[in-house]
């Protein structure tokens, strides 16, 4: 890790919604940081709070029923509670977002060029002509074959992969220091997925951006991430360098995640291992460890308080002693090779 201050420091971030079932805590006090030029992968199943964390960073949670608390410091500036004008000066320019569904993420009635140009002109003094030229250049940079034609196309005239590239081009238009990507490849074909991931990996090299990549696909994380955060029930349960987490995961939930990936070689298992039970309802989280009810190794201590994250570089939130967990892990995952 570099000596300079991290680009983004999130402390005790919570996102709650007042609903019919009372207060629902989608994100329950998460803390993490992102260094410059670092790619952080956030994994977890649907409803674990990954997307809400990203939206909170972007200041895009504007439901009147939502409460965002905690601290998000970006380049030293506090983003939680920032007014709209100051927020607009940062997002799109310093922090940009790539959305999950390219099919609905673009306004249907404006051309791709207009939508990219709009962002450029919101943050820089540029003529319409210059903004258009910039859009063509960006579309070319994200690997669109004929940017001169695509710049004047409407979203419905492009394929899903092309649209996602256009969304990425838009996110890159002001060379953001931080790019947050919410499942950018989920809606795409596998071949296009690989190209998009390649592109995200290149962003850091060419544009110097840090990336937070949210996904539920461990393969995607293995492909591009430097560091991995595992999220469950609105909290992080494990955090560490990619190699370390993939080689020796420390949390029973992460074991379950890896266990549910089919092995590439060796005997094909009759059934893939699945984590028993269902993810907890966010309106009714267990008092102790959120994963407790589904965990094969739970005992008394798991049910009272959520365990804190413990460890240094590679941390996990589990009450079992780390040595004991390493021992169990070696036993259960013997034979499962790291995929990357």
């Amino acid at each position, binding site marked *: 890790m570099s000596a300079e201050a991290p680009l983004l420091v999130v402390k005790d971030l919570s996102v709650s919604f007042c609903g019919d079932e009372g207060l629902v805590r989608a994100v329950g006090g998460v803390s993490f940081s992102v260094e410059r030029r670092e790619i952080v992968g956030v994994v977890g199943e649907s409803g674990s709070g990954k997307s809400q964390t990203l939206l909170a960073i972007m200041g895009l949670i504007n439901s009147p029923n939502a409460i965002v608390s905690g601290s998000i410091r970006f380049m030293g500036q506090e983003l939680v509670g920032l007014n709209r004008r100051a927020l607009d000066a940062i997002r799109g320019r310093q922090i940009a977002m790539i959305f999950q*569904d390219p099919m*609905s993420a673009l306004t249907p009635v*404006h051309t791709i060029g207009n939508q990219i140009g709009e962002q450029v002109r919101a943050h820089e003094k540029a003529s319409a002509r210059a903004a258009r030229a910039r859009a063509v250049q960006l579309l070319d940079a994200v690997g669109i074959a004929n940017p001169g034609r695509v710049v004047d196309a409407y979203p419905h005239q492009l394929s899903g992969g092309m649209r996602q590239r256009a969304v990425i081009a838009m996110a890159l238009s002001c060379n953001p220091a931080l790019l947050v990507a919410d499942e950018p490849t989920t809606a795409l074909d596998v071949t296009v997925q690989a190209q998009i991931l390649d592109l995200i990996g290149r962003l850091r090299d060419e544009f110097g951006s840090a990336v937070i990549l949210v996904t539920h696909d461990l393969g995607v994380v293995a492909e591009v991430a430097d560091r991995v955060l595992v999220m469950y029930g609105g909290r992080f349960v494990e955090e560490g360098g990619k190699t370390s987490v993939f080689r020796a995961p420390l949390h029973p939930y992460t074991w379950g995640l890896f266990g549910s990936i089919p092995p590439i070689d060796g005997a094909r298992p009759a059934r893939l291992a699945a984590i028993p039970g269902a993810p907890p309802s966010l309106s009714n989280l267990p008092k102790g460890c959120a994963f407790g009810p589904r965990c094969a190794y739970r005992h008394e201590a798991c049910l009272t308080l959520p365990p804190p994250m413990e460890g240094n570089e590679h941390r996990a939130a589990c009450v079992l002693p780390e040595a004991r967990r390493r021992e169990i892990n070696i036993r259960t995952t013997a034979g499962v090779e790291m995929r990357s």
Partner: protein
Amino acid sequence: MLAALGFRLGQMVLVMFGISVVAFLIFFATPGADPSARIAGRNASQETLAQVRHDFGLDRPLPVQYGLMMDRLFVSRDLTSFVNRGQLVVPTVASAIPVTLSLVGGAAVLWVLGGLVVGVIAGATRGTFIDRALMILSLVGVSVPVFWLGEVANLLTQSRWHDTWLFSWVPPLGYIALTEDPWGWFKALIIPWITLATLYVGLYGRVLRASLIEMMQEDFIRTARAKGIGERRVLLHHGLRTSLVAFVTMFGLDFGALVGGGALLTEVVFGLQGVGKLTYEALQTLDLPMILATVIYAAFFVVLANFVVDIAFAIIDPRARDVR
């Protein structure tokens, strides 16, 4: 694009033809609606009936009758009224058109502007006091009958308060041609415009608000916000722009129907000799040529309005361009 336009024009002509046939059949060939009996008057003898039938060409086969009628309506334009002998139908309708167009056109400007303002403000301030007040006002506007509103406006501006500073400028009821006196035209029509537009401002404001609120939930609005453009631009350039589809569809249909005679009540209340009033009077006396002319004229405007809406669609929604 040109081919599509030509195709639509051809469709329009076909629809017009169909409507003229149906209108003709309804009025001239429905059993029991013998037009010659109408013309000859009550208790006319068989000889008189036969004479009338022959004079008006009603003893000839239907297709020939239809052809004759269309010829006299569109080519020689010498079709005369059955009721006021000698009154030419086509010039009568033609002289009513500017009145109706002035009334509906002016009201349309008011209601489009009003609807946009009400819809956007209510949509942007959703759930607040302003939103609720605007929605209650528009509900009142939608509910007030146009003839009642018109009569009240007349009562106040022509009688009760006419001699005060407030309404002394209001001219007597009736139409003043734009070409003769533009300022007089405006003064004579401003109150009818407001009366006619009230209902539509309420209606369009409510529809636009609903459509805008729906659009503002879409993913692309989130993308737009993430770009760091101000909320006003998000609302107008992304939200409103995509909400206009419903608005334009409604406008085309309403405008066509009103120009086609739907502004009848307003015309009657304000003594404007427009197409609606003409149709109304022709129906009362069962003046068949006049009815036929006004029905075909109305159909023409409804079809034309639909055509214009289709073109407007292609302009505001690029997805509609490629579907044809």
